[in-house]
């Protein structure tokens, strides 16, 4: 009873969009897209609508960004919600489910300093007092960008969505609208790309510099 999908339609649609942009010279203002979708609960859909196929990876998405995210960069995914762990304390792939909706926040490790990481953690705490910093996952940008769906479609874009307090902030977003079963596969592939989701505890991240600063504020 599996529903039939139309991969050919999706490829054709994507191909037509690329051709249209190439022939008519349609330019995209990635910083404007970033600003407009910032508070949108379906931010990823907004980015896909205006800049599909990871177009904005080639441009700075924020005036605060030092530059686009390179494939060689290491990405850190901070984990806050205890809901992402099972009873035995093992992480679940739900930690990456924001790639479908709001964008999955990451820190660019080569750019971030301790102040940036501290600001990011504080921002999440201010947003929801029930959260706690559980740890950090690491993955390489090139590995994440090479995740494909159905063999040949790039699934994840990585953008430099920096803000003033945290220029190292970035986001992982889906590259186009996928079927729901594709998302389940993407969650798996992200789970594997981030070192099989082995968590670095907060006191071990950056030699405990961020953790010590946080605990001194309590």
């Amino acid at each position, binding site marked *: *009873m*599996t*529903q039939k999908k139309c991969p050919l339609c999706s490829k054709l649609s994507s191909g037509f969009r690329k051709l249209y942009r190439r022939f008519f010279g349609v330019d995209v203002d990635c910083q404007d897209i970033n600003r407009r979708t910032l508070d949108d*609960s379906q931010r990823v859909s907004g980015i896909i609508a205006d800049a599909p196929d990871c177009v904005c990876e080639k441009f700075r998405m924020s005036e605060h960004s030092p530059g686009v995210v390179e494939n060689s960069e290491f990405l850190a995914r901070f984990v*806050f*919600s205890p*809901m*992402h762990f*099972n*009873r035995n304390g*093992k992480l*679940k*792939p*739900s930690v990456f*489910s*924001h790639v*479908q*909706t*709001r964008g999955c*926040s990451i820190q660019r490790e080569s750019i971030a300093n301790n102040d940036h990481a501290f600001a990011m953690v504080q921002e*999440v*705490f201010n*947003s*929801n007092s*029930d*959260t706690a910093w559980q740890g950090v996952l690491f993955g390489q940008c090139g590995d994440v960008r090479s995740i494909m769906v159905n063999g040949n479609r790039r699934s994840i874009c990585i953008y430099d969505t920096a803000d003033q307090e945290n220029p190292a902030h970035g986001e992982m977003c889906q590259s186009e609208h996928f*079927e*729901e*079963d*594709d*998302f*389940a*596969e993407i*969650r*798996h592939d992200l789970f594997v790309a981030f070192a099989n989701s082995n968590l670095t505890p907060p006191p071990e991240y950056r030699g405990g510099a961020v953790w010590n600063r946080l605990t001194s504020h309590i």
Partner: protein
Amino acid sequence: MNTFVTASTVAKVLLALSVTQAPTVAHINDPLLQQVRPNNRNTSRTMFVPTSVASATSATTVANDYSYEFINRTTTPQENIIGEIRQFNLLDANWDGEGAFKPKSTSIKEAVSFVRILDDKIAIPDPMLLASGNTALYWNEGGLYADIEFLGDGRIAYFIKSNGDKHKGILTFDSEKMPAVLQTLIGV
């Protein structure tokens, strides 16, 4: 003057007492009274069974005029998971501090139905709440990786990796019958 005031006050009080009705408290039927949960129950879930149908192994008998017996048993792993899934209903939007959607009740119901019909031979999954508000079930041990998402509209999206083979798709789910393909893939 004092005598007049005192007599008047007494008269008012007597009048008030005669007019005022008794406090209105609803009558509680006996069958409801006897269903109060006992303090000394052995399990987290106790079944009330009339003595006429209770088995010979049943333990304690309740007092009052009505005789009921309890079947003492431990909570099953499936019931534990169902309890965990139902707790998602208590969460609000932004449950993860990163702007996640409020959990969808329809998706939660579908996940509960699915767990209820899980075969005892199948390993117990971990419930998973996604940023979209959908509930999913997750297995990751012994060569099996499975992620089954309940879309809240009678459909299930699944990705299963078993012994190196990958399977994925979208199925309809009627909440009563386990889709055969999942039974086969997860039960491996």
